[in-house]
């Protein structure tokens, strides 16, 4: 009978996965499950370890929980329309009730080992460290540290173990530990840097996704060491420079500060910095963002299919965690390059307990790069970041982070000027400000990791003549969230609550005639659950559900999500999918490529943008120095908002609804054979919008038109080679992207608006460009080679200097930023720019 439940003789009852039991329970009800458990109990003395009884009971309880959850979901589905804030409160109570229910059952007998892994030298968390428990019989229990350096190995049979923590570049840590029955043992580990590089004992975990080809169900984790491989105009790298090397991520060019991820618009990307929302984090010059690599701990990039922890955006998630300051000694760096100058300072305020890190960057383009190429580059930008991190106890940490960014620039040429190089006077500017706090703690008696996040984020975006903008927008969000993870043997049960309050205010200067731009106050509350279930050794399932409600809008969304990872030997298959909504969105007028003004508003016209994602991927590691991955994706989007297509592009227009799809696949090949690192990637993508276009209906008799939006880059190829030897670090990157769509023109005429009795004898009219059908033309392909050579000079133990020399756009390709159809003048991206940099570091 046990065989029916996967209980072969000698097996551990834990392999009778509670998932199967829970699924059975859905089907057959509790009586039958009790019978099954009784059967287990009956045979236990012969075949099962005593701890397995606990697991079986846990299975039962989880099954009950899951059943209740199902009922609850059905209830929600039936009452979605009438959901009100009280439901969120009820959900809160229900969720809290899970805590003792799940965790007490989980901690009843087996032991749990948990803690934080940090670098001994500076107290930095070390994500990705493998932590392993090995008993005398050789049984292994393991986990890898997350971005906080946190690990938890739960439901371990009580006993004596050898604890090992290992990570490349650090001396392995070994300790004999005793785990008493039912106890939760907290062990914080500080790893010493190795004198020479040592091999790492790798525990393959599904969470570990760092590396160029290590994409799993749309998720890729980026570490500063990855960013350092990319040639950049600044001696300190930047996250955005790495992102634009990834397939499926499209930038408009090296100016504008807009990223399109797998068919999504820039305003559909959720960007978080230490849990704080950053509305517009990418700087106006495309090599830079608010995330210099020097202060990044890690960045999780979800190109789609993200779990229920994240919401409110339609396309992707960029979740960046920043470094903590050095808790042992003061350290810092200053650097100078033709694009930016940077200063960083960090150090202990209370040694070992409280630290500060602060970073300031300011562009020097007009004084630097502009002089090098003798071309006007009217851009200024900068950012300042600060973070206080306190280790309150062995099991509690508190951090306060703040960031401010500013960007100003003039994009595009002046169509009315006789000077072909005249830059348009209109100026676009934006300013981000965000401050937030994060408190993480580990309750003494529960195998729980909990965090509380409170943040406030602001954005101001203006467009128009300097000092007198004709369009402006302000967005502000205050957010409170609680995220909890219960560590169980076969499952990490994640759940959380969130409450956001947003204020939106825009003056569009008549850009969109049918959008009300009054000040709006929008409250959002919700809850998510997301168990990560390990089924056997190979399969990891992550079903999720996110409920979010907007009381002031009368909108409630229930979003199912799903992620699955199957690992077998050198292969890893992954899948992800889900439903996503975006109530607060940014409106752009993509008819003008030089216009990066974004108006933030709640969903107009009574429709909320919605997307379904589907991702399927395969990754293989035939050697420990090679990874290959392929991942396909599909996004079905509806209720998108685009400017109504008209034949009068320079006039104001209406916002209208459109639907869209994005589909494609990525190929990545990564080779790591010291001293060479290589990453080759290819991205294939097709994005299509389908919109009813009244103007076309009148002209061509078609009620709607399918067209490729201006970010539909069909093919992308990227090759990166890094060679490190003799103290030098040589990086070469070549990128190729096929042309983006643009509007072809019939020509120009002089247009007289005859909507009343206008005298054609006297009225001059306006010059007009006559567009063809939308976006049928293709701009030339984009390609560029960047090279950098870096050398570090170590003066003494505490001081070193790095020198960088490089070429941006090494063969001086004239890559088009956009074509002004009025003047037929092309605005090109940056030409060949020799670059150099100097960085002085001390500690």
């Amino acid at each position, binding site marked *: 009978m046990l065989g029916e439940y996967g209980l072969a003789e000698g097996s551990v009852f834990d392999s009778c996965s509670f998932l199967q039991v829970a699924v059975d329970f859905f089907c057959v009800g509790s009586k039958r499950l009790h019978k099954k458990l009784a059967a287990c109990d009956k045979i236990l003395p012969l075949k099962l370890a005593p701890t397995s009884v606990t697991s079986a009971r846990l299975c039962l309880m989880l099954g009950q929980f899951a059943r209740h959850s199902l009922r609850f979901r059905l209830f929600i589905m039936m009452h979605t329309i009438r959901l009100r804030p009280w439901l969120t409160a009820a959900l809160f109570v229900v969720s809290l009730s899970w805590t003792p229910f799940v965790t007490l059952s989980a901690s009843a007998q087996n032991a749990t080992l948990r803690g934080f892994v940090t670098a001994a030298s500076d107290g930095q968390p070390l994500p990705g460290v493998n932590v392993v428990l090995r008993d005398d019989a050789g049984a292994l229990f393991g986990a890898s540290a997350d971005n906080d350096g946190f690990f938890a190995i739960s439901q371990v049979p009580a006993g004596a173990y050898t604890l090992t923590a290992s990570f490349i570049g650090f001396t392995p840590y070994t300790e004999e530990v005793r785990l008493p029955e039912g106890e939760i043992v907290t062990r914080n580990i500080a790893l010493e840097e190795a004198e020479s590089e040592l091999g790492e004992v790798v525990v393959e975990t599904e969470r570990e996704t760092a590396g160029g080809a290590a994409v799993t169900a749309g998720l890729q984790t980026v570490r500063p060491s990855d960013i350092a491989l990319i040639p950049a105009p600044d001696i300190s790298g930047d996250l955005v420079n790495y992102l634009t090397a990834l397939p499926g991520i499209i930038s408009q060019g090296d100016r504008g500060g807009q990223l399109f991820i797998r068919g999504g618009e820039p305003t559909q990307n959720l960007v978080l910095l230490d849990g704080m929302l950053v509305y517009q984090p990418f700087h106006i010059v495309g090599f830079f963002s608010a995330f210099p690599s020097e202060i990044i701990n890690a960045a999780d990039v979800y190109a789609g299919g993200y779990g229920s922890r994240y919401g409110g955006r339609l396309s992707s998630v960029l979740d960046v965690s920043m470094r903590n300051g050095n808790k042992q000694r003061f350290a810092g760096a200053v650097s100078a390059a033709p694009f930016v100058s940077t200063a960083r300072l960090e150090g202990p305020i209370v040694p070992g307990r409280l630290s500060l890190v602060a970073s300031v960057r300011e562009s020097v383009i007009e004084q630097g790069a502009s002089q090098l190429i003798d071309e006007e580059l009217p851009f200024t930008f900068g950012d300042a970041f600060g973070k206080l991190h306190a280790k309150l106890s062995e099991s509690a940490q508190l951090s306060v982070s703040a960031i401010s960014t500013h960007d100003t620039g003039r994009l595009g040429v002046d169509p009315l000027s006789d000077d072909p190089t005249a830059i348009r006077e209109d100026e676009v500017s934006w300013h981000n400000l965000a401050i937030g706090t994060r408190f993480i703690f580990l309750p003494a008696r529960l195998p729980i990791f909990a965090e509380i996040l409170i943040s406030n984020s602001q954005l101001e975006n203006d467009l128009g003549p300097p000092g007198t903008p004709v369009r402006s927008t302000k967005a502000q969000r205050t957010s409170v969230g609680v995220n909890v993870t219960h560590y169980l043997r076969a499952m990490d049960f994640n759940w959380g609550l969130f409450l956001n309050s947003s204020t939106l205010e825009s003056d569009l200067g008549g850009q969109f005639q049918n959008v009300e731009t009054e000040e709006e106050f929008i409250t959002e509350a919700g809850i998510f659950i997301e168990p990560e279930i390990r089924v056997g050794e190979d399969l990891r399932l992550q079903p999720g559900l996110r409920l979010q409600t907007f009381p002031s809008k009368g909108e409630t969304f229930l979003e199912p999500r799903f992620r699955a990872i199957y690992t077998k030997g050198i292969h890893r298959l992954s899948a992800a999918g889900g439903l996503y909504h975006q109530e607060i969105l940014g409106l752009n007028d993509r008819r003008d490529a030089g216009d990066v003004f974004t108006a933030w508003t709640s969903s107009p016209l009574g429709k909320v943008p919605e997307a379904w994602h589907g991702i399927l991927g395969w990754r293989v590691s035939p050697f420990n120095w090679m990874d290959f991955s392929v991942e396909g994706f599909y996004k079905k989007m509806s209720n998108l908002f685009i400017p109504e297509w008209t034949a009068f592009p320079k006039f104001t227009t209406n916002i209208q609804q459109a639907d869209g799809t994005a589909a494609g696949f990525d190929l990545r*090949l990564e080779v790591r054979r010291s001293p060479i690192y290589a990453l080759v990637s290819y991205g294939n993508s097709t994005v299509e919008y389908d919109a009813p276009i009244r103007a076309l209906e*009148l002209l061509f008799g078609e009620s709607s038109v399918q067209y490729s939006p201006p970010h539909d880059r069909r093919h992308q190829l990227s090759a990166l080679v890094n060679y490190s030897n003799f103290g030098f670090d040589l990086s070469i990157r070549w990128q190729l992207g096929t042309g983006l769509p643009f509007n072809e023109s019939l020509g120009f005429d*002089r247009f007289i608006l005859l909507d009343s009795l206008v005298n*054609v004898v006297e009225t001059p009219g306006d010059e007009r460009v006559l567009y063809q059908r939308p976006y049928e033309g293709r701009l030339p392909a984009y390609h560029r080679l960047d090279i950098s050579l870096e050398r570090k000079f170590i003066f003494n133990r505490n001081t070193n200097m790095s020198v960088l020399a490089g070429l941006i756009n090494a063969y001086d390709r004239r890559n088009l930023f956009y074509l002004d159809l009025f003047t*037929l003048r092309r605005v090109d991206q940056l030409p060949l720019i020799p670059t150099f940099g100097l960085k002085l570091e001390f500690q």
Partner: protein
Amino acid sequence: MRPAIQRLMKGAGYGVFVAGLTLSLAACDNTIEPFPEEPDAFFSIHGVLNTNADTQFVRVTPIRQTFVLDAANPVGITVTSTATSSGERVVWQDSLITLEDGSPGHLFFAIMDVEGGVTYRLDVTREDGKTTTAETTIPNIPSPLVNQPIVVDTVIVDDTEEEVVEQQIILQGLNETPQRIAMNYRVAKSMLAPEEEIDIQYDPDNSTFGKLPVVVELTRDRRTIASRLGLAPNEKTIIFKGLELEIELWSVEWAVPTSGVNIQNGVGFFGAIGHFFPTWTLSSDVIRTVGYIPDKADD
């Protein structure tokens, strides 16, 4: 590594190489073709045929591939209009004009009357024979059916009873709501005073007058006229000399003036306006009842 994986990796590597090579070759081209090689639109036309004018005008702009407006040179452009029912063809004359902003413009004009219900085709032809054609139909002339005036009410004004007179005009053959409806009255302050024309607009969107029939409020209009002449509203010494109804109708192209659906091989707007002035007479009794003094000529 298993052979299957090796084969797959090899295949993938080959695929990436071929894709890269293909894309690289395609990437050499750096030219942009913003305009079609063989455009099928030649002229932009903006103009209106008007039944109320004896000279018709259209502005013609060649569609060009430079934004900057070049010096207007109408040489080689021929504009003709043809009444499709009769086949009557008129060659329009060209004129280079200076517009309000100082820029030059091609204005073509023809001295001709246009008739209601007639479709006119305009052909604008280049020297090489490329032609832009536009068609518009002048709105139909409605045929008025004038009902007898009736007293619809009696009111007390300055302690005197006054009858309220209205008259219904049915506009037969009218298919759309007029853009403008007005009553044009010819009156004089006294027998020796000069005749004056006074227009009283009726709101076409008004629920009463936006639909047919038109109800002419004769008594109300008399009070309005008295006010405009500087007299007391109840003054009944005004000499009534005549009246007419003015109706302005726009052709169907005005519904969406930016569409240019009636223009072949070109863009712009080409429409028509029909002005119609149905007139009738009032008897002396009715004139007196309304509150006027009949003109001597009518007695």
